[in-house]
């Protein structure tokens, strides 16, 4: 009995120590975002200059970039979630000539390094005069994402056949079956896909850098391109304001994770992604 509780204590100590290591950089980011300008990095809170957060929105066109981020997310995220679900359902529940070969295409896209197709895709959008518009995100959204098609498929395959058959006897069309039966029970997966898609989209730097110009950059790309310099020409970046801006960029990611964490864990368990 004593041995067990000792190993327990040890386990907690290890977990606390590891938590400290993982949290430490984030803690540093927060306290340095509140420190006076141009100070060297600090490991203890020295001041609480909340106005750094104001300057983060003031020294660059912060809210415009944030608005761009939001527009891109609103175009891309719902479409991908819906479209991937539709394809995932078809691959899981419907057999058709060629469906297996097409599913192998889905799997191969997951393995394909995205960067290989980016330049030719750029040329394609350039030819259609769609550079510096948000239309590419509309197109990608409609296409869905291979990874999430796979995730939906894994989940829909676990739904018992009887559920579907009962509905079919009642004369439901396949679309009705998907919409009224499959989608409602897959809420954890829908939530997971929505949140993970949002994270990928919100954090993307290179896509917008290639397909958009500065005025339409989302926040992530803007923060990697424009440094925070004090007004009046000094060429040194203000680390404290940069950290404040970075934390504001990370905030929606953290909030959506906290809200959806229950679903994400459940979603990953039920889809049983294994490969």
């Amino acid at each position, binding site marked *: 009995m004593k041995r067990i509780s000792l190993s327990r204590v040890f386990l*907690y100590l*290890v*977990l606390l120590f*590891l*938590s400290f290591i*993982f*949290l430490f950089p984030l803690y*540093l980011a927060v306290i*340095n975002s509140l420190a006076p300008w141009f100070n060297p*990095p600090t*490991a203890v809170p020295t001041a609480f200059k909340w106005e750094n957060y104001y300057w983060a929105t003031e020294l660059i066109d912060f809210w415009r970039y944030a608005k761009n981020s939001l527009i891109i997310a609103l175009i891309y995220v719902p479409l991908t979630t819906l*479209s991937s679900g539709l*394809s995932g359902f*078809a*691959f899981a529940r*419907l*057999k*058709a*000539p060629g*469906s297996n070969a097409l599913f192998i*295409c889905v799997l191969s896209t997951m*393995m*394909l*390094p995205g*960067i*290989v*197709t*980016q*330049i*030719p895709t750029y040329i*394609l959008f350039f030819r259609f005069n769609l550079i510096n518009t948000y239309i590419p995100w509309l*197109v990608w959204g*409609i*296409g*869905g994402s291979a990874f999430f*098609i796979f995730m939906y498929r894994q989940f829909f395959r676990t739904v018992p056949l009887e559920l579907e058959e009962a509905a079919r006897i009642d004369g439901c069309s*396949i*679309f009705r079956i*998907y919409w009224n039966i499959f989608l409602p029970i897959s809420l954890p997966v829908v939530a997971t896909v929505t949140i993970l898609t949002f*994270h990928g989209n919100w*954090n993307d730097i290179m896509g917008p*850098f290639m397909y958009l110009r500065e005025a339409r950059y989302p926040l992530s790309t803007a923060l*990697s*391109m424009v*440094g925070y310099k004090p007004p009046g020409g000094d060429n040194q970046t203000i*680390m404290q304001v940069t*950290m404040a801006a*970075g934390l504001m*960029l*990370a905030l929606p*990611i*953290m909030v959506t*994770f*906290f809200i959806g*964490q229950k679903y994400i864990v459940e979603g*990953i*368990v039920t889809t049983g*992604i*294994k*490969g």
Partner: protein
Amino acid sequence: MRQIKQTTRRSIAFYTMIAPWLIVFLSFALFPLVYGFYLSFTNYFGFNLEDLSLVGLKNYQNVFNDKDAMGALGRTFLFAAINVPLGTVIALTLALLLNHNIRGRSVFRTIFYIPSIMPAIVTTMMWKNILFTGNGGILDRIIGFFGLGPVNWLGYDYALFSLVLMSSWGAGGGILIYLAGLKGVPDELYESAAIDGASYMQRLFRITLPLLTPVIFFNVLMGIIGTLQQYLQPILLAGDQLLARPIKPIYLYVVHAFQQIFANQRFAYGMALLWVLFLITLLLTLVVFKTSRLWVFYEDGGD
């Protein structure tokens, strides 16, 4: 008759439902892939799309004669050889620690997971400006506490180490999938092992890890593909512009391709560079798949 109608109806429904994916896949994934392959055999430099001429294998010959490219490729392999196993061990260890019946489990899980979803720009700014910086950086102060001298973290000797360190901080991304995999290990196995008096280590190596190999396999594969393509973090560590050129030790292969395309306008050559990487990735994936029969345990005995 009715049977036939039923299957045709299902086929039509299938193709209607996957149509959005299929159309975009054909026109914005498959077509660019093939088109890019074609471009890698031309003299495309950004402005001559109307007037391309074929140059045969010249771009590919250049790839293998390009010392920077070959050096970067070797470095990328080295980075992957360190980063993928290290990341796997970290995520797996964290998941195993969390796979106990403990208080505050979801809090610990969140703490380990959060760094992996931080935007790349925030992670690199944080590490670069606060931890790595030579201007009173926190890492220097920590090692100074143990009597070690300041280190040039982003200089030639330590840049790769720093990149690995920063990547390891975000390695907790895999824990959710590992935890899901651990949930799938049947309790009966542990119970009968306990009756036989097996120690924790015996249970770990005889039951848990073998049953987890499919999940590990999936993560290792994705890790290899992702690491070979890594270019954003080295660039962001190098400067505050996306065209910044990282120093040699973290000048990875895709960084080189990126430089050739965007800084030097060598588009066709860049496509050849990327296609070489793509073929290497395919080859590696194939090798990993082939060897997986030796170490991945499938409950249904394969396939």
